[in-house]
């Protein structure tokens, strides 16, 4: 009893405050991660999911995935989708951040309103873009036609390559506010004197952008891109609702393919294996972010 009291006298009393949240996460997140790993080495289907014998099959699920063309396609799709989204949402977000950093009268309220796309449920965003990209009733086809850019309506969501374009557009729309607001915050931390003394030295605006703004923003840019990668690479709802991985499995991402294997084909173990591969990629990229964050933590 005395030992326990002594243990909690100083800093360790913090454990009592932190433990409930930690235990909750251990039960509802930690345990599932471990359990998902085990699952991927077994042969669990709908028959033996809750009860019944589960056989260990070693790496069989992973080996089968390597020969699975849909898996390969999903992996490539996820990469292409992520890179395309990152490029556009970062560039547009950056441009908007610089623009709204100017001190004009309505800058702040308008920038605030631009947050909206980021907040609405992704299912709804998917629905909105499905409507905009619809073949006959979609406003996009009407617009392109009236500008004489196309003659016939494009079947955006039922053609593999254009379906990808539609998915990227929708996701960039969600990602722009996030990029914009983080870069805006980064911009405000750059001391104004730097620009002023550069101006005195006869440095042009373009030069000071490349020599002051970009280098000073580097930490912000790094974390925006890493976080952007993580949150784009695990995209799920948007693709599941907009295309469901179709037409004929051509727009599956790792997350939607994993879901399809587990909850539509009831190959739970194989679905788990796909999810684990997705997790490994995220952890590799995420480790850079963790390194930056934990380093800041120790100081």
């Amino acid at each position: 009893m005395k030992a326990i009291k002594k243990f909690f006298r100083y800093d360790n009393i913090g454990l009592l405050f932190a433990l409930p949240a930690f235990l909750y996460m251990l039960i509802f997140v930690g345990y599932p991660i471990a359990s998902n790993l085990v699952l991927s080495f077994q042969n669990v289907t709908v028959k033996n999911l809750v009860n019944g014998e589960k056989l260990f099959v070693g790496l069989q699920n992973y080996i089968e995935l390597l020969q699975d063309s849909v898996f390969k396609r999903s992996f490539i799709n996820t990469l292409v989708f992520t890179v395309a989204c990152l490029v556009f949402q970062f560039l547009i977000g950056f441009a908007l951040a610089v623009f709204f950093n100017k001190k004009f009268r309505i800058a702040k309220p308008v920038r605030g309103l631009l947050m909206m796309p980021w907040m609405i449920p992704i299912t709804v965003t998917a629905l909105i873009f499905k409507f905009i990209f619809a073949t006959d009733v979609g406003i996009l086809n009407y617009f392109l036609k009236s500008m004489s850019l196309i003659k016939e309506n494009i079947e955006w969501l039922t053609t593999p390559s254009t379906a990808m374009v539609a998915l990227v557009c929708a996701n960039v729309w969600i990602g722009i506010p996030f990029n914009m607001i983080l870069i805006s915050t980064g911009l405000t931390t750059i001391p104004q004197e730097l620009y002023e003394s550069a101006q005195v030295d006869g440095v042009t605006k373009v030069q000071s952008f490349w020599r002051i703004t970009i280098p000073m923003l580097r930490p912000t840019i790094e974390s925006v891109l890493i976080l952007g990668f993580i949150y784009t690479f695990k995209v799920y709802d948007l693709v599941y609702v907009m295309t469901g991985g179709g037409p004929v499995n051509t727009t599956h991402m790792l997350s939607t393919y994993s879901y399809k294997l587990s909850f539509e084909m009831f190959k739970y173990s194989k679905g788990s294996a796909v999810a684990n591969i997705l997790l490994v990629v995220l952890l590799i990229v995420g480790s850079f972010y963790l390194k930056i964050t934990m380093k800041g933590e120790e100081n």
Partner: protein
Amino acid sequence: MGEGKPLSKKKNILFCVISIVLLVILLFPLFWILVTSLKTEQEIFQNPPTLFPHILNLASYAAQIETGDFNMFRSFANSLVISTGATLIAVVLAVPASYAIAKYHFKGRNAMLLGFLVTQMLPVSVLLTPMFIMMKNLGLYNTWGAAILADATIGIPFSVLILKNYFSSIPKELEEAAYIDGCNRFTAFLRILIPIAKPGVVVCAIFSFLYAWGDLAYGMTFIIDQKKRPMTAGIFNFMGQYGTKWSYLTAFAVVSIIPVALIFIFMQKYIVSGMTSGAVKG
């Protein structure tokens, strides 16, 4: 970036005009579903499309109350219960945990912090099947409880990481003064620190709510009964069944945005602060 320098009057007007144009372009999708939800099905398919409804049609909203299986106001209520439950769990657990991480260097603190950071990165696919089995074993499958417990796991790590910063910024002297006045660590936490960190608590509550409100995967996988499902799952189902009934679909979408819009209108400053202090959507 020209910051701090006042703009000339001409430039000021020019920038205001440009910003309005940007706003119109970027928020057009939201405007478009709102007007579509107010049109008749016939007018939606009209060519050329109309920018505003010629005949104001509220039937798409009214119809949802009657049609049994896809009553959007019932799924709205379901979402409300699920999101509120998840928010309560997240806030109640995250507030003390973030305080501990901010103020005490206890054993395992850094490991715990790392744990919260990592859980923010997890894809939902990794957790779905094991959670599905777990909810079945707990007897929670096909109940609100399953979605509440699962949704709270998104809010907790986010809230801990945000609130940690709020608690660290509170000077130690304040706490020490409370001890002199006879508070112990628990009463000081409850009476002095939580009230000071209140804005942070509000940010956490808002984001935990929004995460839960936007969730599709958990609500759809753990609840199969349409009558208990949240709105997002309702919309998804509806799309599968009435894929081209855009008047109904857009009405459904507009209703599900209402709480988000309300939060947005009344609590905008909290949202920006939440996003800039490391908020990331899962």
